[in-house]
């Protein structure tokens, strides 16, 4: 199941809602859940309350409701499919099915505590396949996130941007110091991320083993379009990701090509503690293609880029000037 986060046109910025997908349209999951519960129990008043509880205003909060909410999501999904988009409405007949254009897309995870990208320094990357026990990572600030379709604004301080298509593994359960063999119990799903880097700045910052400005400027983190929830481990590991520039494939991989496993990554970074809605991203640049790691892809002003994975969707953007 895919979950989107969005805003209705008439809503305040903090009135975010969770949407699901049905016949190319989007439906309000909270109200669909209320409709389902009303049909099930005949109690409309409590159905609204329960639906708000399990499907609050963000995907992060939904994930905090844990497996009960995921189970309910499965039932709601079956319910909306049986109704069909044209017959689906809220418990009191409210409109809950929208055309995509009616919903303002948001990054599906708005303010995670941890939004880390696994990555090596340029020095380590000088080797075709660096040897390391430690899946080192860097942090992408939530204030840099943009949603599907939003422009990537070329920063004034850089001459040299590139992009790395990533899977962001989404955490569904809080834990700390999780052993590798339990790691998958903490995974709720996966979404797509494009990690934009100002490479000239990043190279300079790398000399002091830092990266900050080169990785954290407005619109340097594209996230979405949806979070794939409830997929089996095997499905997630074998999902393919294609990163396209002007429609041409420039990166291609699945999580199984990464030089670190999801288990290793979660075992390492859960040392700091992880919570529902946190994500750990793995990019093409950490996956092996042939006899070496793939590289990030250089961008130009005007480039149309797209990160694509069949079960998650397309995360597409254009690079514009400031």
């Amino acid at each position, binding site marked *: 199941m895919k979950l989107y986060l969005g805003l209705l046109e008439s809503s305040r910025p903090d009135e975010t809602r969770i949407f699901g997908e049905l016949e190319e349209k989007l439906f309000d999951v909270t109200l669909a859940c209320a409709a389902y519960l009303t049909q099930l129990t005949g109690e409309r008043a409590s159905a609204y309350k329960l639906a708000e509880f399990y499907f609050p205003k963000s995907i992060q909060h939904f994930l905090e409701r844990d497996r009960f909410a995921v189970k309910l999501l499965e039932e709601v999904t079956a319910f909306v499919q049986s109704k069909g988009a044209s017959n689906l409405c809220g418990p009191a007949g409210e409109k809950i099915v929208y055309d995509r254009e009616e919903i303002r897309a948001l990054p599906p995870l708005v303010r995670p*505590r*941890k939004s*880390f990208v696994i*990555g*090596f*320094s340029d*020095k*380590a990357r000088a080797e075709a396949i*660096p040897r*390391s026990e*430690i899946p*080192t*990572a*860097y*942090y992408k*600030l*939530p*204030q840099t996130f943009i949603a599907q379709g939003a422009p990537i604004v070329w*920063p*004034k*301080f850089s001459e040299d941007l590139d992009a790395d298509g990533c899977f962001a593994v989404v955490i569904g359960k809080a834990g700390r110091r999780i052993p590798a063999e339990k790691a998958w119990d903490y995974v709720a799903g996966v979404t797509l991320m494009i990690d934009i880097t100002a490479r000239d700045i990043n190279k*300079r*910052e*790398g000399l*002091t*083993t*830092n*990266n*900050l*400005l080169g990785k*954290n*400027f*407005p619109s340097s983190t594209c996230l979405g379009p949806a979070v794939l929830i409830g997929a089996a481990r095997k499905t997630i590991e074998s999902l393919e990701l294609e990163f396209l520039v002007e429609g041409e494939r420039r990166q291609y991989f699945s999580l199984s090509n990464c030089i670190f496993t999801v288990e290793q990554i979660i075992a390492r*970074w859960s*040392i*700091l*503690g992880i919570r529902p809605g946190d994500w750990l991203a793995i990019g093409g640049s950490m996956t092996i293609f042939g006899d070496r790691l793939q590289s990030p892809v250089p961008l130009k002003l005007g480039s149309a880029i797209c990160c694509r994975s069949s079960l998650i969707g397309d995360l597409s953007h254009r690079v514009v000037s400031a």
Partner: protein
Amino acid sequence: MKLVTFLYHGEERIGALDSIGRIVDLHKAFACWKHETESMPHADQLAGAILGQDMLEFLQHGEKSLEAARKSLAYIAAIEPASNKAVVIAPSEVHFMAPVPRPGALISAGKNFSDHVAEMASKKGPAAPVAFLKLPGSVIGPEDDIPYPPEVKNLDYEVEVAIVIGKTCVRVSEAQALDYVAGYCVFNDISARDIIRSENQTGIHLMGKSFPGFAPMGPYLVTADEVADPQSLKLRLTVNGEIRQQSNLNYMIFKIREMIAYWSQMELHPGDVLTTGTPRGVAAGRKANETPWWLKPGDLVEAEAEGLGVLRNRVVAES
């Protein structure tokens, strides 16, 4: 003003210290002032909307909340309200949190004092400001312990000053940079040197700076109008009473104005925090033949900056 965030009966509240160090609850003070002088109905509910619910919102509301806070404090100072209203609270009744418990971004300067660059055996100072991100979630307050994680062998301290941004700034000039500062407080950049060393082999350091509790901040946020010359504040850090670091922000390589101007290229927002970097005297700078200074469970670390108070935390083994 000396602004504070505190827990009172389990509830997070914002306040300011009065002239004798008591806490004035800002929401209650505002409500009291508006109710008693203008008979304003629902003044207590309005307080949250005007002042913001927490310190981050207070900062986001900018001049408006600052002005309302100042006027409320002046009123309370003049009338001395009944003690049962909990407008003025004794410090012993609360638990102080970090003044900004949840910064948006926490940007910490590295290699920003030449004496510290030398002790860390770096060849030379950087050409442009150097900084890294600490996780905002690692912030703790002046009455919290620093947890010593079992993964860490070499735990270190770094006294710094935190510069709290008060207005959104994008590519501001050095001349105007200080206009964007809400205030200043003491900061201790706790660092796990062994973890950092291992991370730096193939990547950048993140874990070594961001275990839970690795960012003590406080005890209070002194508003910018009360810090005449932030660039010349004296710094000091002691461990169990022994002086380890003693310096002055004058010795920063990239000054506060330069840091704000530079990092505003990535867009800074109210509640974002920049820290100055630390002078010499950290445990990592000790020579092989000297007694090690690594922090141990039980140590009391006191970081202070002139006019910003003392930030006192005990290191406690993580259970």
